[in-house]
């Protein structure tokens, strides 16, 4: 195999046309390594589109990852209390979301954000500290985070619909599904007395500000 590779080497000038090199560099779309024809993301037409899709996927992946860690933190404190099963259920749904994004990222060779260790720690701390405020605290945190995430997904859906709804149908479907799940979590949080927490308004806004900052940074780094 190696020898074949070596002999192939010396013919490179005749094997490769310049056009192919440009294409390899400019459009690093997923080469057909997967045997399944179905893919959530259409092969990007140019670097601009690839960058846009990369950003969207990167920040969504970071968001789901953070949400996972938040629920993990909440479970660490409240896991054995009455709200344990409820939080566990919401956590399981987030795990599914994260799995889906992992798949998409791997398939499309999207770089995950470098700040993941930061979101790991920050998410866990946020979940744990709000859970220490009791069940209402945990629910308030859930409401704040889920509201941020839903808003974020909505703006992504809007952006994609504006660009080309036909092209991104699969991706839109995925994002819409996840947004609906997050809205459900938000409503669950409200049902379970999130608003009865003293300082609810303050906590909620602080958390949402943090989420906005995290989203902004994760898109870029």
């Amino acid at each position: 195999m190696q020898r074949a590779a070596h002999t192939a080497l010396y013919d490179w000038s005749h094997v490769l046309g310049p056009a192919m090199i440009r294409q390899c560099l400019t459009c690093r779309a997923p080469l057909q390594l997967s045997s399944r024809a179905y893919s959530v993301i259409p092969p990007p037409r140019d670097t601009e589109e690839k960058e846009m899709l990369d950003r969207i996927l990167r920040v969504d992946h970071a968001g789901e990852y953070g949400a996972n860690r938040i629920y993990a933190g909440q479970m660490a404190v409240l896991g054995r209390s009455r709200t344990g099963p409820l939080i566990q259920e919401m956590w399981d749904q987030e795990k599914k979301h994260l799995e889906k994004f992992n798949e998409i990222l791997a398939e499309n060779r999207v770089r995950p954000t470098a700040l993941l260790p930061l979101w790991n720690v920050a998410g866990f701390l946020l979940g744990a500290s709000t859970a220490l405020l009791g069940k209402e605290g945990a629910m308030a945190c859930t409401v704040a985070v889920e509201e941020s995430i839903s808003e974020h997904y909505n703006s992504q859906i809007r952006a994609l619909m504006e660009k080309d709804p036909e092209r991104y149908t699969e991706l839109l479907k995925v994002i819409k599904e996840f947004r609906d799940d997050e809205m459900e979590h938000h409503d669950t949080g409200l049902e379970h007395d999130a608003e009865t927490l003293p300082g609810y308004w303050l906590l909620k806004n602080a958390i949402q500000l943090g989420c906005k900052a995290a989203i902004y940074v994760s898109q870029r780094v």
Partner: protein
Amino acid sequence: MATLLRALRAGRALRGLGGALAAPPATNPQCSSLRRGFQCSMLRLQDESKSDRPPDSSSTTYHEHYQAHSTEQDTTTASHGASAAEPEAEDAPRPNTSYQDQSGEQGEEYETEEQLQARILTAALEFVPQHGWSMEAIASGAETLGLSSASTGMFHNGSGDLVLHFIAQCNSQLTEILAEQHKQVQLGQAEPKKTADFLRDAVETRLRMHIPYIETWPQAMSILLLPHNIPDSLKHLSTLVDDIWYYAGDRSTDVSGSHHPRSPPSSAHTFLSPFHHHPHNIRPATLQMNWYTKRAALTGIYNTTELVMLQDSSADFEDTWNFLDNRIQDVVNMASTAKQVQSTGEAVVQGLMGAAVTLKNLTGMNQRR
């Protein structure tokens, strides 16, 4: 009266055009701008040379066509003046590939500036052992293609362009080879390699592409370190490393442990990963950071091996490949050490928790009163 004058003027212009252009003008549209004129005449000449005799090799066709073209240069400038008076009559049949299509796609009989540059640089590579990575090499390359050596004016970055072009070519060739190997594996005609072996073979294949130019490679490396070349060279390096890992089967954002039905369980999944994939325990950033640490490790390996290769005088660079083997082994060892440290850490934490619970039980703090 005025219309008569206009018609006369137009007629004169047409006749002038007809005389200036030696090529059969009948089927080709009139080109209004100079650039279009230039390109249109290239097209026409190419047509002509294609129809007159079957081109045996692309280089000679271009050679003749360029020579014929250079005699056309002065006539096109003459036609420019005349054609400026002409209304823009661009017939549909010719695809208008002049400005819009700069993406490097091969037009039908048409070549963009990028492609021309690529061709010149490829031709220039032959002269690198002689002239080094420099404008002289590019000039000699241009001359082989029948272009004047003044066409080096196209290359503002000169030797940087040449080196970057070479690197890009090597990278895409490597990608092709890796894709081919992958296909073989998928078709079941070849055994999937272990990750360490795969990485070693990939890096070796890529570095072997430098062998013909190894004498001048230090010069090339120093050119790549120039500030204006650094962003491009880093980009090439990062895409190279990403490609190699991708073909090694790296899907390192996949934390959850679910195997993709399509990809064979590759050792790249567990290479460098401290944990076995644990479905319900999404342990964190260490697995995600795998994406970065793997690429950083491979970049380190590649760069150091490249440097070693520069001063290697053994037969067929044996020493370099041994060095490469050792570096990869180092990384593997480090990864397994990290794995061990973390499992030890986990065990210790669990022990501590157990001790704490025992203490609480002993002191009776666990009782609910």
